[in-house]
């Protein structure tokens, strides 16, 4: 019986000693740390944290800095809002924090300039190697045989930090979700063929664009894709705002000049010009008249 008690005592004292040792060490360390932190205090602008909170914190690198923190530091240290632009950021709030004037930036969105769906551009070969566009692009012109079009392997999807771009399983083409896309350019940088264009979102997200990126001559381009731009120039002739240029057998609509009248859409013989976010047909007529009247 005695034996057990003494053992118990021993156990208690051990715990007490241990707790005391750890506790005292901790307190001594805390005191040292306190003084050290006072002596070696790094003064950091508190605005960096505030600015960082206004950034998306996806660390996509689209702005050219290593991450959102680096961009926030750059803005605060240079005291300049133009040092980098992040379309996903709350620019007005940053301007408020920095007490600077925000330059209005048009909201941007990424647009896939290829409409080579499985039906429009049937596959001529079958690719079953590593599923990355970067590699497929070095190997061959693509399953659809168009050397300019989308390869459909989804490098843009894996580059997007905002979950805004997905490959449509039916068409094998990427689809951009307007609501989620911030126009950070990560997908455009990942695309080895420059199929993706970053452009202004436009009024109500309405936009007209040439969904083709093929520089081949019309007859050649049409061979592998039914909706290829053949560079005929009909759209450029019909455009009242001179927004369309033809270069290297390919039409390009300047989104800054385009007023979204959609005359070119009806004119295009191969259906290469697509529109987005327009209300259904009936409302179209009304808007068209308006535009014409303006012109």
């Amino acid at each position, binding site marked *: 019986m005695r034996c057990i008690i003494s053992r118990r005592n021993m156990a208690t004292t051990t715990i007490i000693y241990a707790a005391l040792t750890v506790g005292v060490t901790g307190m001594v360390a805390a005191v040292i740390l306190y003084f050290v932190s006072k002596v070696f205090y790094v003064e950091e602008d508190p605005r960096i944290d505030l600015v960082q909170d206004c950034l998306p914190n996806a660390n996509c690198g689209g702005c050219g800095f290593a991450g959102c923190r680096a961009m926030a530091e750059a803005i605060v240290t240079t005291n300049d809002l133009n040092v980098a632009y992040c379309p996903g950021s709350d620019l007005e709030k940053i301007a408020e924090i920095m007490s600077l004037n925000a330059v209005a930036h048009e909201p941007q969105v990424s647009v896939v300039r290829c409409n080579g769906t499985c039906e429009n551009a049937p596959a*001529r*070969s079958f690719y*079953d*190697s*590593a599923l*990355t566009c*970067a*590699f497929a692009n*070095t*190997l*061959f*012109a*693509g399953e659809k*045989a168009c*050397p300019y079009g989308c390869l459909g392997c989804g490098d843009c999807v894996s580059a997007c930090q905002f979950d805004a771009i997905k490959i449509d399983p039916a068409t094998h083409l990427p689809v951009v979700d307007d609501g989620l896309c911030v126009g950070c350019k990560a997908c455009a940088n990942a695309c080895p063929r420059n199929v993706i264009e970053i452009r202004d979102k436009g009024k109500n997200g309405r936009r007209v664009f040439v969904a083709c990126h093929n520089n*081949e001559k019309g007859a050649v381009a049409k061979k592998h894709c039914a909706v290829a731009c053949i560079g005929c120039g009909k759209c450029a002739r019909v455009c009242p705002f001179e927004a369309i240029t033809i270069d290297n057998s390919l039409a390009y609509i300047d989104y800054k000049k385009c007023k979204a009248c959609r005359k070119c859409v009806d004119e295009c013989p191969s259906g290469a010009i697509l529109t987005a976010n327009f209300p259904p047909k009936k409302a179209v007529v009304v808007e068209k008249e308006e535009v014409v009247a303006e012109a």
Partner: protein
Amino acid sequence: MENENIIEIEHKLEDSIKFVKGMKRKTFSMGGVHPDGNKFAHSAPVETFPLPDEAVVYMTQHLGSPATPVVKKGDKVKVGQLIGKAESFVCANIHAPVSGVVTKVDTARDITGYHRPAIFIKREGDEWDESIDTSLDIIRDIKLKTKEEIIERIKDRGVVGLGGACFPTHIKYMLKPDQKCDVLIVNAAECEPYISTDNRVIIERCEQCMIGIEIALIASGAPKAIIGIEANKPQAIKMLVETAKRYPNIEVQPLNIKYPQGAEKQLIKAITGRSVPNGGLPIAVGCIVNNITTMYAIYLAVQKNKPIVQTYTTVSGRSLPEEQCKNYRLRIGTPILDVLNSVGIPDDTGKIISGGPMMGKAISNLEAYTAKGMSSLLFMNDEESARKEAQPCLRCGKCVSVCPMGLEPYMLHTFTDLKRWDDAESYGIMNCIECGSCSFICPSNRPILDMIRVGKAKVGGIIRARAVKQ
């Protein structure tokens, strides 16, 4: 010229095998795999393919920048006339493969489906340039005496390495003052399965190859040449050994059958035991390596003034009946479909490969044209051509054990997957010779080489950008 009578002095196969068995063989030490040889076309004599009605000649038939076209629409050209001029350092001249009228100077899609600058020639007859000797006589006295003259001629005649990479040959011989070549290695390993053109060239043009090597010896300044040849070509070995008796500077070295024996660095290791430093060229260890068919091309260029206007191509594959496996001598610019149709495309063909099953490329655009160094067209059957589903990596280490460069392919694959380019670089991704042994051996069917190629392209870009900055 084209109707050369094939001088069949082939030795009996059994005799040759016995002969080769008695010889000492060498090989490289690290890694390597043993794919089935499948040399179906080994004993098929080279046939001359009919001239095409229209030849399309790419300006990018070699490593480096494209040649600049020097003819225009409507020009009449003769066979062997210069049509594409090399204007940068890593580039090779291109000559008209057929006589006729230039119909277009434009772009044409090559086997990858991409557009390449090309010259379209409509054939009329077969008229050769006057300066070219088209007779079959073997000229033994070397016509050009000095090193400079020979290199200039090789450059002028557009000779490129015909082993597959098509590197302009003259650059290999232009040594810096501090570089010295003490052994010329002639690559006749032909370690890729199916391909048999080197074998046929040796058997049918052995003497010419030897003279070509003698010329290359003058150009390189090396005292001796060693021909490395894998032991699966007994007849060729016996012929080389017997012919080499008359050429004291040339040695024949049989090699064990192992892939990638024909890779430059591995061949040097096998024959001389020297290791080429990382990122270095063979000349760093005093070697120049050239393919045996290139030697024949050098012979033609120097002795006959004949440029490369034709290519030797093996048409073979498992989906093709064995009697249809052939070796062709065809003009550059012949439509690939013509060649394929000449043997007939079997129904079960799933893939057609240009240039060997291990390193070659699947042809995605059949409406392309032959080019320099297109050493084979292989018909793969459906079963062979489909990839098996990739499974997770087992960490079995097989890829490490077969890598002839001593790399860790599974790590390089992972680093590329994770975009850890700095790690990929420190693990030596740039030393990969892309032989494909890792993908071949992987029990999980992982596309290791594919990913390494992605990583290599990316890391190469980073290294170049860094060099520019500095």
